């Protein structure tokens, strides 16, 4: 762990504690397959495919690997077959490939060599046969779920604008994972019925990512911010890149804040979904990205760095602290509550600073919806809030009463004494 992470958290003792705890308590066999050399098993053996899949996962998505190892062993393994990323190929080549991806999954020995040499995912595609091996080794029920989702992701690509690709994909990942949770028997089968909530889980994460990557995507010629929103903040003949210009900062922030509201509106549904989970490892698995996402909204909201420097990330110490808090649903709920109030606070502090910005009231409403969801949930569960205004109120009246009474008694006592 970098000393830099510790230094960044120096003003936040709870994060320093979390960082140290993380450092000394985490020992994961799975995260050790981060380099090609660490894969020690002999080629062709089941152990080799397993190690190689974790190696690919670490290579293509480090954070995902960390999240997956939180899963129950029953699930962690199948999840490996479910990797997915944007491939920087030309569309002509990519679309037909993606369209048939669900059948490729069953083709033993299939590989793909046409990625550019600098692409992060190249190695995965070149040795994709290993992933297929692993996929075919999974229980048949897992295979079905994965193939189904792979097929649907691809269907979306052909109909929808390519811009929307990642947007839909994230929702489908939520749906696919829910399918895995329930066929594994760890969660109720009823969980799969509500695709609406599963989709919203994915959308929440993806929308936060899309906000974060504004500059990076722009530099690489990609655009994921919805035109319907940004077109309101640029001149008619301008593109999304206009928001990166310093003279348009007010418009850019107004646009960003509107996207923050749009993402925040998903939060109650994410809480609803997570409240239905039972297996602790599944809760933790789902909760980690969610708590990171809501903390990220608090970081991005009205933050000009999104347009000037990019690469905004929550402090590593905070991330680790959130990972620990996300172990139980109660913890997740507290994180959501804290950030809903925190964002609402930032929101009201900046009122009147940006004439272009119309997001104040919508953001306030969106944050209060999170609090309302929690109030309703607590009521249903019979949880009485620890210090409601009412309780404090009655307690204090009694206390103040006593103080005043004491003062009066003392006054009369003194008066009585002076009489004698």
């Amino acid at each position: 762990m970098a000393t830099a992470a510790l230094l960044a958290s120096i003003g936040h003792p709870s994060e320093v504690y979390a960082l140290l705890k993380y450092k000394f308590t985490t020992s994961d066999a799975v995260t050790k397959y981060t380099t090609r050399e660490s894969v020690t098993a002999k080629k062709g053996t089941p152990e080799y495919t397993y190690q190689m899949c974790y190696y690919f996962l670490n290579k293509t998505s480090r954070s995902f690997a960390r999240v997956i190892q939180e899963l129950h062993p029953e699930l962690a393994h199948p999840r490996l077959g479910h990797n997915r990323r944007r491939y920087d190929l030309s569309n002509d080549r990519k679309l037909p490939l993606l369209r048939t991806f669900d059948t490729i999954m069953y083709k033993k020995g299939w590989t793909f060599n046409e990625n550019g040499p600098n692409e992060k995912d190249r190695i995965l595609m070149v040795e994709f046969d290993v992933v297929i091996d692993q996929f075919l080794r999974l229980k048949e029920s897992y295979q079905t779920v994965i193939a189904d989702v792979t097929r649907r992701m691809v269907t979306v690509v052909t109909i929808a604008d390519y811009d929307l690709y990642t947007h839909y994909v994230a929702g489908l990942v939520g749906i696919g994972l829910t399918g895995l949770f329930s066929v594994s028997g760890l969660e109720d089968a009823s969980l799969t019925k509500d695709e609406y909530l599963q989709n919203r889980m994915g959308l929440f994460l993806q929308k936060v990512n899309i906000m974060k990557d504004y500059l990076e995507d722009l530099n690489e010629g990609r655009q994921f911010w919805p035109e319907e929103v940004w077109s309101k903040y640029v001149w008619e003949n301008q593109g999304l890149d206009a928001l990166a210009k310093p003279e348009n900062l007010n418009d850019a922030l107004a646009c960003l804040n509107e996207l923050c509201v749009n993402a925040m509106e998903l939060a109650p549904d994410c809480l609803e979904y997570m409240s239905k989970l039972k297996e602790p490892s599944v809760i933790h698995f789902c909760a980690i990205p969610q708590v990171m996402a809501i903390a990220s909204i608090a970081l991005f909201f009205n933050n000009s760095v999104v347009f000037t420097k990019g690469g905004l990330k929550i402090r590593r110490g905070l991330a680790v602290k959130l990972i620990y808090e996300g172990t139980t649903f109660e913890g997740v709920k507290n994180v959501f509550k804290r950030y809903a109030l925190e964002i609402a606070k930032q929101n009201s502090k900046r009122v009147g600073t940006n004439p272009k910005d119309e997001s104040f009231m919508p953001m306030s409403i969106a944050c209060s919806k999170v609090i309302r969801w929690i109030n309703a949930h607590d009521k249903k569960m019979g949880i009485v809030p620890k210090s409601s205004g009412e309780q404090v109120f009655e307690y204090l009246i009694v206390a103040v009463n006593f103080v005043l009474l004491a003062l009066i008694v003392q006054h009369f006592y003194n008066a009585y004494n002076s009489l004698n």
Partner: protein
Amino acid sequence: MVGLTTPPQQTESWIVVGGCGFLGRRIVEMLLERGETNVAVFDIRKTFDDARVQFFTGDISNAADLERAFEGRSVVVHSASPPHGLDAKVYFAVNVDGTRNVIQSCKNLGIQKLVYTSSASVSFNGQSLEEADETTPYCEKHLDAYNETKALAEKMVLEANSPSFRVACLRPSAIFGPRDMQCIRTMLDVARTGKSKVQIGDNSVIFDYTYVDNLADAHIIAAEKLNDPNSGVAGQAFFITNDSPVFFWDFAKMVFDEDGAKNTLSTVLPTWFAIGLAFIVEFFVLLLSPIKKIHPTLTLFRVRIITQNKYHNIDKAKKLLGYKAKVSLGEGIKRSVKWFKEEEARIAAANKESKKQQ
């Protein structure tokens, strides 16, 4: 404009009791906006003029006055109610006796539909309310005569419901809008006297507000739904809000901001501190009461009200009335403050003009 989405029913003859008031006038205007041609007003005073409207001036406690105005009407909207802070006698006279007269006059003349403006406070006596719906009972003990008489009147109206006399009661929470002399006016006065700096509590308390156009719209659609005996609306009470509960202080914050006040609510008093302070204030007010009557701004009751959640679930209105708040909270605040500013500019210009003429 709100209200235009439903086609006018020009066969209907409307009368709005209290049609010169803040809400009643908006109902009248919105009926006219959507092309209604048969609209009348009954009020104790005439506050505006419109050639398309027939005005009746009279006393709601006088049944003869009412019957003269109700003659030939097919639907009555009763939204007359005195403002907060008056003597209990006034509330009993207008809300209870007056509403009884309205019901009786309708029955005497064979009018089949009545929509009554009740209040969300019929089931509020200072407790916290979260997602309160219509299953929340009436208060056993009411906070004040206003709430008590609104509840008595609502019960009378609902009990009068029958197949030949169909009624609906609407219970708005914190109405605001142009011409509103309570919510927005008070906040603007607070802002302009420099009292907009102090916030009590961490702003986690959630409240419900209702923009006047949305409420007026709800009255019109409720009256329409009463035509359909199978709509399930007759004999029912409905909470009506903007369907967007929001942090208590954020509403005020936006009103202040629209009015141009800067750095508002910058001093945050913790709830416990405000309670302690209010207690001490009240203690001294009580001590001084034989010598001097003081009405402090900071009272225990007020602190208690603004440090507790009060918001509603309006699914029933959405489902049975098909109600939807068409004007958002933010848009409603903008329109309200803009109206007050324009009105003040008009008055200022008129004063200048009259001075010139002198």
